[in-house]
């Protein structure tokens, strides 16, 4: 199988052609540096993204507090994680770096607040 992948590790955005089978990469063409190859392998087998969104807050100065996954999570799980995030309501005050979902969907990654709300 062949896949066109644009490297997003740095702003150069090299356009790479990745060949492989069953998520295993056999060749990468078009990258300028080693980091592109590592990225290509991850994008080819199971792409990951950092998810950011907001969570509702009750009785606070603001109605929302922003959240993120502490590390990138598999892209395929993002719709499911969004559902969990939208199901949460916090009570003010909320501090920054509060864990709102621990080890979300067994990814080993927490969803935490990136802002605060008094």
């Amino acid at each position, binding site marked *: 199988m062949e896949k066109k992948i644009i490297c997003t590790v740095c702003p150069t*955005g090299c356009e790479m052609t990745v060949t492989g089978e069953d998520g295993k990469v056999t060749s990468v063409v078009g990258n300028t540096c080693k980091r592109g190859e590592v990225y290509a392998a991850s994008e080819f087998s199971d792409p990951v993204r950092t998810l950011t969104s907001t969570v509702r807050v009750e009785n606070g100065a603001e109605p929302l507090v922003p959240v993120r996954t502490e590390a990138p999570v598999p892209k395929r799980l993002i719709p499911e994680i969004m559902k969990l995030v939208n199901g949460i309501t916090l009570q003010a005050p909320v501090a920054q770096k509060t864990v709102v979902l621990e080890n979300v969907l067994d990814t080993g990654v927490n969803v935490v607040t990136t802002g605060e709300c008094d």
Partner: protein
Amino acid sequence: MLIVERDNHPGGILQQCIHPGFGLKLFKKELTGPEYYTEFVKEAKELGVEFLFDTMVLELADNTLICANGQYGITEVEAGAVVLAMGCRERTRANISIPGTRPAGVYTAGAAQRLMNRQNRMVGKKAVILGSGDIGMIMARRLSLEGAEVVCVVEIMNYLAGLKRNKVQCLDDFGIPLMLSHTVTEIVGKDRVEGVKVAQVDANRRPIPETEQFIECDTLLLSVGLIPENELSRGAKLQMHPVTGGPVVDENMQTTAAGVFAAGNVVHVNDLVDNVSAESATAGRSAARYAKGELKASDTLDVTVGNNVRYVCPAKFSPERGGKVDFYFRVLAPVAGKVEIIARDGDTVLARRVAPYVNPGEMEHLSPDVTGARSLTIEVKEV
């Protein structure tokens, strides 16, 4: 040190920028907007910086700010030096004059971002986005994540306005098509947007009538550029830059009024907050030196804009004060292959750097030593 802010919270535009992509240069980490400014706010408070919130600055005259505050009424603040950091605002429908009706459902991308990320208000169910700038693409992802359908992103130029990584992560990930060399020719709808007409444009960016098509949607987001917010600067009669729309500054970020400095999007629109922070540190340091009587006045020279350069910031520098100066600039047209960026005084090259490509959407920079220079030209050449 006093910060006068019309909002009720520090952070500026970063408060609504909940996405990651900040601080890669400065902190070598991918932070979200709120995470980025929290560090600076903490540091400022520890240093004893005071904040005056809910206060609008109405006028600047001779280093005195005239402000309106709900509690104190009209207030005057006298200062030894002033740093202008009012940021920018978005170009609106009026600025680009799209024909059609005036229904609800037309937002600037930043206004939609504020509504969704700070006020918990969804802007629509089916959206078209005009403009492929980063804010437009980031809002395409935000809307998709919250369950709205983004039909397409329409871009009048034949290249992407924002970063490629945002196209991959915000459009491609959600299967949102990008229509280059297209524009919105009409907004349709009585009370609420019912759709938009979209047409391809020719080489002169004029719509080609035969290509016009109707796209059904209930929301149109405009991501068509930012303009520095400069009522105060113009009121204070500062010399304004014809290209950036911000005040002309020298290498200390000092404007043409002694003791008035400026930094950030009020000077020129930045795509990376890290550059704003670097520039702001220069402005702050210079303002402190001015207030203490340590900043030498000196004659300045204008930077000459060379081949494929749209503008350079700072636009002036002092050869007498000299030293290494960080000049930021944007190119006029994209070049896909290798280019050489050169800073020269006549035929003498002061600094040069090879870049793998250049793009108007990504600010470039070069740091020549300008001590004793008789002129300075910055140019970009294909190699």
